[in-house]
Each structure stands twice: as structure tokens, then as C-alpha cells.
């Protein structure tokens, strides 16, 4: 439970020495309670107070890093149960599971798919984030060899060692310890051995138990044995198990500050039917998973799951935006049509997509409206005739195009008169209301 300012004050040296930059210990305590100061600022605080305060001020869900290097993924640090309260912080990672019992050929193919999985969507690069290597052979030699192979083919991709056999796990961890794999891993029956491996090689440890209760006692044991970086699997196999187990875990962590479950959640979502797997992965994405392990990564499925994750993890207060500028679509010459829209990512994405569909090379002037859609921006006074006129003049587009025709969204047809007055020498053309009318509109215009 978070401590109050007064409770924190009781733990401070109470000398009012001001070294922390605050006039009194109490003032500093108040700032700490609001999380606007860091305990490190007081040089005289006791070790014991540090321990108590450190635990109380730790985020309800511990931050864990999956992998090392450029493609490492940060997980955890969540603070709310519903996205409208505050942005979900660290998007869940997607991993594909590879069994070491598959042929080398199969394995290489899957690794190649992971590497080629990156898609650009609304300005973000999205990809399958990790590879889970499952020890299905139960053979340490084979497992280590496959781990080495995957690691060398996908040197930057984080790896999850999905292995409950301690000797196989040890061999594999040793082989790629510098990549900081997640050792997933530990159950009640192999806890000691797995904890020792994780500690020896400084890797995070994944815990598996059936249900939040068993999981919490396992996590307490692991922590008592000295492991800090923990990822937890409540053992759910069905959609029902995922939504109920994950909800209980996240609630316990956030609302009760129940530390034994204050860790990122891993869900193994593997089904024979890829569409069912997609649907169940959706449950895990929406309901608090930090790692979703899939059995296959078809491109259509990746696209749908990446998009869901992107949607749910956007900031509910600040819409996704694109940069204000004149975007070229195709290779527009000086006579190519010029259109204007707002910088809401969704608007830009839809409109530019339709312009592409038209195959008519064009320019799309995207104006900064704080990420609002056309009508919302208009209603909020950000997409007005004077601001559009100013933007067009300052953009330099007048040097790029020979004509003086600006196509505006049909939904703001009302602007055309005033805009023609403000933007001297320009003719304003009202485009279709919906972007899907653009291909026909542009083709007819070009003809």
C-alpha cells in the first residue's frame, strides 16, 4: 500500500538539514508521497527506511525487460485496470512458440518469419517481438543446439526459454546468457534448480502455477530465494481462464498492492485453429497480458493482433498524430492534385490509403490539429479557414505546384467561401465527404 506523507516522514532522519533540496524533512516526505521526488535525494536516510520506502514506492506491477539490445521489450509498470483512466503503459509482447522437436528446416522457416514480421502501421513499426523455444524433446543436447541456432539466426530477437527441464534449461541459458533470455520455467517441483540458474545467469524467471493463489505463493518463494525479475503464468488454457486469472492478478496488484502478484503476466495462447487463437489472443491483449505466446504467426493474424494492441495501448487523452507536412503520394508532378486534411493518425491513414488506391499521384497537406479528426478539429476551432490559409502559405507548397487548387474534405464544405477569401489566388474544391469517395473523385478529375 502506498504510504502517506506523514508515514514517510516518520522514517526520515528528521534533522531538516535541507540537503535534499527541501526546507524540511516533512516537505520532502510530502513530495515523496506524491511521487514527485526520489528518495536518493536524502543522503542520510537509514538502510531500513530505504527498504520500507523502496517497497512501498515500487510500481504495482514490476518493470521487467525481455531480451537485451535494440529489440528488448519493456513490460509491466501498469497502473490502471481500464484504459480510459490512464494510458496502458507497456504494450504486450508477442512471441511465437517453436518446438525443439521440429526439424531444423521448420525452425529456420519460423525464425525467418519472425524476422520478416515487421509491419508499419500508422507510423509505428510493429513486429513479433520474441521467440519462445519449447523444450519438447526433453533432451538437453538438442535443446541447447536449437537455442544456439535460433539465437544465431535472430541475434537481436528476445528469447523465451520455454523449458521446465532444469538441465536442458541450464545448458540453453549458458549458451545465450548475454541475450538475457526469459527462463520460463519454474514450477513448484523444479523451483530450487530454476531459481539457481536464473540467479547464476541473471535472467528473469517465469513462474507457472495453476491459478493466482498457487502462483502467488510460488512467487513469494522465488522472491525469498533472491529472484527479483519475475514473470507469472496463471496456467490458463482457455479464454475464460485468461480473463478471470489475469483480471484477478492485475486487480490484486493494482488495487490491493499485493506484491506477490505484482509482475508481468505471460499467457500461452496456442490453439489448433488460427482464427480461434487470434480471438483468444485478443482476450489476453485486452485483459492484461504482458507476453502472449502464439503457436503460429500468419501475416493476416499478426496484422489484426498488432492493430488491436496498438488501439488499446494508445493514450486515451492524446490521440496518435502524424507530422505536419506536405506528403507526396506516388510521384506527383507540378500539376498533381493537392488535398488537405488534419494530422489525426487515423484520418491521415485512411485518406492517404484511399489516395494510394486511386493511383493518381497527389500531394496531401497534413495540418497540425493536435491529432483531431476533421470534424472534431473544425468544431474545436483548429481546422479553420485562417489557419489553413496560413499553413498552406508557410508550407512552401506554392513553389511545388503550378496550379492553385486546394481540395478540402467534404465534411467541411462550409469552409470553402471564407478559405477562398483568405487564400488569395487559390480555388477551393470541395471533395467527397468520405475518403472512400476519393478514388473515383481523383480519377474523374484526372480524366
Amino acid at each position, binding site marked *: 500500500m502506498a504510504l502517506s506523507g506523514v508515514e514517510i516522514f516518520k522514517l526520515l532522519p528528521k534533522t531538516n538539514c535541507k540537503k535534499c533540496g527541501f526546507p524540511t524533512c516533512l516537505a520532502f516526505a510530502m513530495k515523496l508521497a506524491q511521487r514527485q521526488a526520489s528518495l536518493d535525494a536524502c543522503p542520510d536516510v537509514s538502510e531500513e527506511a530505504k527498504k520500507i520506502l523502496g517497497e512501498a514506492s515500487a510500481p504495482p506491477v514490476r518493470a521487467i525487460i525481455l531480451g537485451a539490445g535494440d529489440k528488448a521489450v519493456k513490460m509491466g509498470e501498469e497502473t490502471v485496470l481500464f484504459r480510459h483512466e490512464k494510458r496502458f503503459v507497456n504494450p504486450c509482447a508477442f512471441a511465437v512458440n517453436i518446438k525443439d522437436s521440429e526439424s531444423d528446416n521448420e525452425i529456420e522457416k519460423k525464425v525467418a518469419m519472425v524476422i520478416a514480421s515487421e509491419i508499419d502501421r500508422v507510423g509505428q513499426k510493429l513486429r513479433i517481438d520474441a521467440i519462445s523455444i519449447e523444450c519438447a524433446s526433453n533432451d538437453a543436447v538438442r535443446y541447447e543446439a536449437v537455442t544456439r541456432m535460433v539465437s544465431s539466426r535472430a541475434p537481436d530477437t528476445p528469447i523465451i526459454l520455454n523449458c521446465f527441464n532444469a538441465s536442458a534449461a541450464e545448458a540453453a541459458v549458458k549458451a545465450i546468457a548475454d541475450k538475457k533470455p526469459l527462463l520460463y520455467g519454474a514450477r513448484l517441483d523444479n523451483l530450487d534448480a530454476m531459481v539457481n540458474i536464473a540467479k547464476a545467469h541473471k535472467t528473469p524467471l517465469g513462474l507457472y502455477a495453476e491459478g493466482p493463489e498457487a502462483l502467488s505463493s510460488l512467487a513469494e518463494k522465488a522472491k525469498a530465494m533472491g529472484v527479483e525479475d519475475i514473470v507469472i503464468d496463471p496456467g490458463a488454457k482457455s479464454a475464460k481462464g485468461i480473463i478471470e486469472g489475469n483480471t484477478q492478478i492485475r486487480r490484486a496488484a493494482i488495487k490491493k498492492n499485493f506484491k506477490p502478484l505484482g509482475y508481468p503476466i505471460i499467457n500461452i495462447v496456442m490453439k489448433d485453429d488460427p482464427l480461434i487463437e487470434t480471438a483468444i489472443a485478443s482476450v489476453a491483449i485486452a485483459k492484461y497480458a504482458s507476453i502472449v505466446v502464439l503457436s503460429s504467426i500468419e501475416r493476416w493474424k499478426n496484422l489484426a493482433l498488432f492493430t488491436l494492441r496498438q488501439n488499446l495501448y494508445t493514450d*486515451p487523452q492524446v490521440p496518435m498524430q502524424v507530422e505536419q507536412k506536405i506528403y507526396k503520394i506516388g510521384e506527383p508532378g507540378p500539376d498533381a492534385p493537392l488535398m488537405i486534411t488534419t494530422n489525426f493518425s487515423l484520418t491521415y491513414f485512411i485518406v492517404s490509403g484511399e489516395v494510394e488506391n486511386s493511383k493518381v499521384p497527389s500531394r496531401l497537406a497534413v495540418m497540425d490539429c493536435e491529432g483531431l479528426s476533421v470534424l472534431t478539429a473544425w468544431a474545436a476551432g483548429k481546422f479553420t479557414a485562417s489557419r489553413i490559409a496560413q499553413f498552406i502559405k508557410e508550407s512552401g507548397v506554392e513553389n511545388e505546384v503550378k496550379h492553385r487548387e486546394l481540395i478540402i474534405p467534404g465534411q467541411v464544405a462550409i469552409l470553402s467561401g471564407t478559405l477562398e477569401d483568405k487564400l488569395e489566388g487559390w480555388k477551393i474544391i470541395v471533395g467527397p465527404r468520405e475518403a472512400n469517395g476519393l478514388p473515383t473523385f481523383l480519377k474523374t478529375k484526372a480524366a
Partner: protein
Amino acid sequence: MAYVIPKETYSGKVASMTIGEGAKSIAIGGENTMPFLSFEGAIPNRPVIAMEIQDITPDDWPDNLKKYYNGYYDDAAKWAKFCVEQLNAKAIALRLVGTHPDKQDRSAEDAAKTVKEVLSVVDVPLIILGSNHIEKDASVIVAAAEAATGKNCIIGKAQEGNYKTIVAAALAHKHKLIAMSELDINLAKQLNILITQMGFETDRLLTDPMCSALGYGLEYTYSVMERIRLAALTQNDTTMQPPIVGDVGMYVWKTKEVSASEEDMPQWGSLEERGIAWEVVTAMGMLLAGANLLIMRHPKAVEKAEKVIEELTKG
């Protein structure tokens, strides 16, 4: 530290209602917990999926969807029958798009005739939707409601600009009613209040806070639905307790992702599954946010979503 299951106790519950008549009528709503959390409350009824049919041959459905209903487009009744008998539809949503002035501008009488024909062949609950043209819907839905008297249908959608006439028709012909507003919890609440002030009971009203497809504003719908559900349960706000409708198919099947060819978009993978997945994932979003009734188009998407609903509600 001992683990205690962190349960919430809610003071309110979602209104429950029955739609349709006879053996195949369906109950929806009635839960007193957030979606699918049966460890802490009762969820007496599972969410329902209605399959969408239209009164004219759709001119804006991509081929990878359209091919499933080839041979049925000329006759809404035949189409409905096919959905019920061959595809196991548990409910049918008849969208009278043909009445839109920009489509075929079919008359209210034509619409009523179509409704009667469909009702004569299907025994599952029927949802009757207009073309989303505020003025035209006012007359079309009134005529359709009359044609369906005694069938306990859901009619809609009543919006700010036309709710008075449509509510009156639902009252007169004893139907349930969908009220739709534009992605804002306060607007949804406001419209529900206006409608109940006309003497229309909450347990006959459904709320559609406006759907949006995966990748096209789904997060707005998702959060508005979650907030409506939370207000219904935690604040016992009766104006927020009508069951929620997710009009999934109509938003999904106009996105680029469900129709762009594999040649144009090789990085997006197989078009067939891509379309189905887009509708399934959008449907999952709505279900997880609290929707009680979904309107969907692709038979495979319906089948997969049904399967997952089954998994989410049993046990």
C-alpha cells in the same frame, strides 16, 4: 501474504429482456459483473450474435464476403432462411439500406413488405434497422415496426434527430429499441434519458454508443462501452443499464484491411482469413468491453466468435 480473490461488489446490474417470440426467443442482459467475470457475479445470459441481411443486393460488400450469400441477394426472406437453417443464426438483423435516398430510395411500404416476408419464414428474433438516414428512417422504421407487430423485435436505430417518432412506434407495436449516439458517454446517457422520459422502460431499451472497426477508432468504442458498463454496475445508474449493441459488420466490411488484395498488400497475408479475423477481433473488442448483442456479417466470423463466447461463458 495470503491471497484473497479480489472481488468487486456491484450495486447495479444490466437490464435483462427477452427478444423474439416462441421457442427461439432469446434473453439478453441481466449480468451484475463486468464481462465474463463469473467468479464474482451472475451472468444469466450469454451475448448474442445476429447475422446481418439486407433488403437489396449490397453494392459495397467485398467479394470475399459477398460470395457466401450468392444466390440469396434477390430475396431477403430467402437470405434470412439460409442464415437460420444453414448457418445456425440465432438472430437476424435486417438492414433496410435500400430505403436510403442515395441507394434505391425504397419506400416505407416496400420496407414493411420485406419485413413481413422475412418474418413469415424465420422463427428467430428479428432486429430491424433503417439505413441510418435520420429523416427517412423516421418513416421507414415506423412502417416496419407496424409490419412486425406482435413479434417482439428490436427496432432501430433511434438517434437524437428522430427518436420521438421511432420511440412512439416501438411503444405502439411493443418492440424493443436501439438508441444510438456518437461515441460519447454523456450523449448516450442523454438520449436514454430523453427516451425513458417518453415512458419507454429501460428494460426494453438497448444502447449503441456507435461502433468502430479494429484500426479505425475501435479504442473509442471500447472505452465508451467499458465506461457505460462501469456506470451501470458501480453507480447503479439506470440510464446506463440497457444492454449494449455492437454493430460490428457494417464498420468492419468497409475497411481497407478486409478488401485489399494480396498482390497490393503482400505484407498483410491471406485476404480470406484477414477479413474474417478483422471482424472476429473487432467483435472480441466489443464483447470484452461489455456488448450484449453483436450484428455481424461473415458466417465464419460468426462461427468463431460463437465458439469463443461459449468458452467465455461456460463453467
